[in-house]
């Protein structure tokens, strides 16, 4: 869908990994001044986000304007850090950085920004750009040992798939410590003497995180909907011998609904829909949806069977794609469900289309 080039939803816990900047140009962040260190002046950034930051994250979420949303890698300061202050490591995806600095309002510290090509921590760790080598390189490049006396860096836990902490420690002398999954938990983590309890370490996939992905899923399903629309127009053309726009639009409505079921309803109700397989959940919800609309308005046997064959297949496919956004599906698991789901979806949809020409 969308050639799988989705934009990053940017929620930056675990999120869909696609997107990233299309240009090399970095976004500007307001600098409040400088902190003097043995490695030179370090720019101080505000822990408060401005209107532009909020607007930017909103635009990213809806995928408007694929402008660069990365910041310049390097070292930054928050508050008035000294050489005993902690160092937090971030991706150079602006939304990761913004979330972090917002959480650091009451902590004087340094932020070491890695070059993750403008991609969030989790996704960059999976790709290896938020990784062992980059961290080693960046620690050396900014002369971190001249800036702080304590040889320790605090990494977001979600960076762990990319970073071998023991190797970083061996190569740089700086010991990586894994902080909490969510930046909001950092103040508590620091208060507890840099210990993350199980809750801070666990990734969940709560309603709020699922629903925030809705715009992203809607945009992701547009390609599929376009295909459905074109097919419907052709079928209508074939049947009525003329292009009846109004007719086509009306018969398209149920398809729009099935995409909504897959992109919004199932993600929102994910834990409550029976089954473990995403495609199955989508198919089941789609089937229920057909039953409901068929009950409200029966379109005739042929069309009803077309609905039964195509609409749940559309929902199933869209929900299957939601595995990329979910925070608990494994590669082996998704591969396994795709092996049976994709052929079934395709066959079901094809029979549904052919049915129309009989």
């Amino acid at each position, binding site marked *: *869908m969308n*050639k*799988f*080039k*989705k934009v990053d939803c940017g929620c930056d816990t*675990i999120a*869909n*990994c*696609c*997107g*990233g900047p299309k240009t090399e140009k970095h976004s500007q962040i307001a600098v409040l001044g400088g902190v003097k260190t043995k490695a030179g002046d370090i720019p101080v950034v505000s822990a408060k986000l401005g209107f532009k930051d909020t607007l930017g994250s909103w635009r990213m979420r809806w995928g408007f304007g694929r402008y660069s949303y990365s910041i310049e890698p390097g070292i930054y300061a928050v508050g008035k850090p000294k050489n005993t202050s902690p160092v937090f490591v971030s991706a150079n995806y602006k939304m990761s950085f913004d979330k972090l600095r917002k959480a650091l309002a009451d902590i004087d510290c340094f932020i070491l920004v890695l070059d993750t*090509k403008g*991609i969030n921590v989790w*996704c960059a*760790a*999976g*790709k290896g750009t938020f990784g062992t080598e980059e961290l080693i390189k960046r620690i050396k490049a900014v002369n971190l040992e001249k800036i702080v006396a304590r040889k320790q860096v605090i990494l977001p*836990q*979600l960076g*762990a*798939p*990319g*970073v*071998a*902490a*023991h190797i970083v420690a061996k190569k740089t002398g700086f010991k990586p410590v*894994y902080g909490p*999954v969510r930046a909001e938990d950092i103040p508590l983590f620091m208060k507890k003497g840099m210990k*993350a309890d*199980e809750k801070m*370490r*666990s*990734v969940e*996939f709560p309603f709020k995180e699922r629903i925030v992905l809705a715009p992203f899923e809607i945009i992701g399903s547009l390609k599929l909907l376009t295909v459905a629309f074109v097919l419907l127009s052709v079928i209508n053309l074939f049947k009525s011998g003329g292009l009846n726009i109004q007719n086509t639009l009306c018969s398209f409505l149920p398809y729009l609904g099935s995409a909504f079921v897959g992109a919004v309803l199932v993600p929102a109700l*994910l*834990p409550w829909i029976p089954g*473990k*397989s*995403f495609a199955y959940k989508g198919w089941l919800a789609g089937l229920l949806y057909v039953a409901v609309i068929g009950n409200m308005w029966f379109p005739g046997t042929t069309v009803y069977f077309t609905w039964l064959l195509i609409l749940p297949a559309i929902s199933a496919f869209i929900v*299957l*794609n939601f*595995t*990329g*956004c*979910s*925070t*608990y*599906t*494994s*590669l*082996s*698991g*998704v*591969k*396994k*469900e*795709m092996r049976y789901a994709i052929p079934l979806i395709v066959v079901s949809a094809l029979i549904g289309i052919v049915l129309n020409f009989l």
Partner: protein
Amino acid sequence: MKYLSNVSTLRLQAAKCTGCGVCLKVCPHAVFVIKNKKAVIVDLNFCMECGACKMNCSFNALEVKSGVGCAAGIIAGALRGTEASCLCE
């Protein structure tokens, strides 16, 4: 939330494990606990194959084929004849 059962490729070699506890700290799904000074897999079905534990186990006690659990990525990989990966960048 649990995903499909018995699919994860995660394997733990108890003989190599020193019970250092690093895997507990990096796993986002609380897959491990320490019992009798060794890591134990509590529930394999919570594993999302992110690879964080393997990456950070300095004793090579863990093995997992990590990757993205993402249908679009797998399709993209299949079309390009590579491993599953995000088609982005």
